[in-house]
């Protein structure tokens, strides 16, 4: 399993550009079948723009279930979890439309 620390691999967690950068990094591992453990430890909160360009992009490319199965997200605080839950639930509903 590939371990990635978010704050070491993106410049911020607010912008589309950095979200896209994360998506590019993670896509390669998913394509090759390697599971990812992504740590959000000590990261700033993730904006919707960053999420749309990263996880949102991955969901649109591979599907919600593939993202859920291939990416384990760790090091999450309760407020980060609240944010992520809202974002992922919105995309889960979209993928079922």
């Amino acid at each position, binding site marked *: 399993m590939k371990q990635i620390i978010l704050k070491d691999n993106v410049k911020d967690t607010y912008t*589309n550009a950095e979200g896209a950068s994360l998506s590019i990094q993670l896509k390669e591992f998913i394509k090759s079948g390697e599971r990812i453990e992504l740590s959000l430890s000590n990261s700033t909160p993730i904006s919707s723009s960053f999420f749309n360009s990263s996880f949102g992009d991955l969901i649109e490319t591979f599907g919600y279930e593939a993202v859920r199965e291939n990416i384990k997200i760790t090091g999450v605080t309760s407020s980060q979890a609240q944010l992520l839950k809202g974002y992922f639930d919105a995309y889960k509903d*979209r993928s079922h439309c």
Partner: protein
Amino acid sequence: MLTTYHIHIKKTKEIEQLYALLKSDLRNAEIYLNLKGFKFFFPIDIVQLAQLIISIANRECSKIALTNAGKYLNGIDLVRFCNTNYVQPNTQSTIPSQTAMPIKRVERENMVQYIDSAKSFLSKYCPGKDLTILNIGLSEFINNVYDHAESEIGAYVFCQYYPKSNSIRFAVSDLGVGIPNKVNKYMIIQNQPAKTSEECIRWALEEKKTVKSTPKNAGLGLHTIMSFVKSSQGKIRLLSGNGGLYYSAGGTEYFFKNPMTDFRGTVIDIEIFVNNLHEIDPEETDFDF
């Protein structure tokens, strides 16, 4: 021929005089803006004043001068925005005598630096409290300005801590097209009937409603902020186009007609009460999808 305007603003609604000025040809104009008697400036007033003064100055007018600004407005750097040659410092600064960050034009390139500075500064007044709502509010609003607003002067941001109410207020404004115009433009493309200003603002706040200004927009930003404000029992004041929204903890939520005629763009002001913020939870777990 020189044209002189003397504008006296004593309360928030009178800021509309500056919006009206934007419709005039201001070349060779001298504008004297008198703030004597303005009782109390909130972030929603400050960001509007700043962006309007800059926008007017950008109209190649001869001169715009702020009089009777007072110690507070000088302290938060608002007066220096009147100087068309003033260039913002690249570094973030704070004002020792005030519980506020200086007014700032924030662009995508300096957004991270600004948010980090604001959080670091305001954390002093709420030690141990989770300020996620500040991070998310600022990043979402600023991103929205650059994604959707088509603002000629970008985003203006102001944050302050208020000891009496033990609250933090922050505001972001732009002089763009406004939510009602943006939404209705989208409705036309979608062959949908036009909406009222209230309907447009309601629509924009709904989850997954987006005008798709960029391919990646998914309609999550404003809804997320509203959720956080509600869960932390805060307040939102929003003005956009000729509509407005007020939300306060306890379920008070109403839309209203913007009292300022000729208003342009969008301004959002959020107030969060320190006592309602959660403590920072250092515990980290795995995310459960």
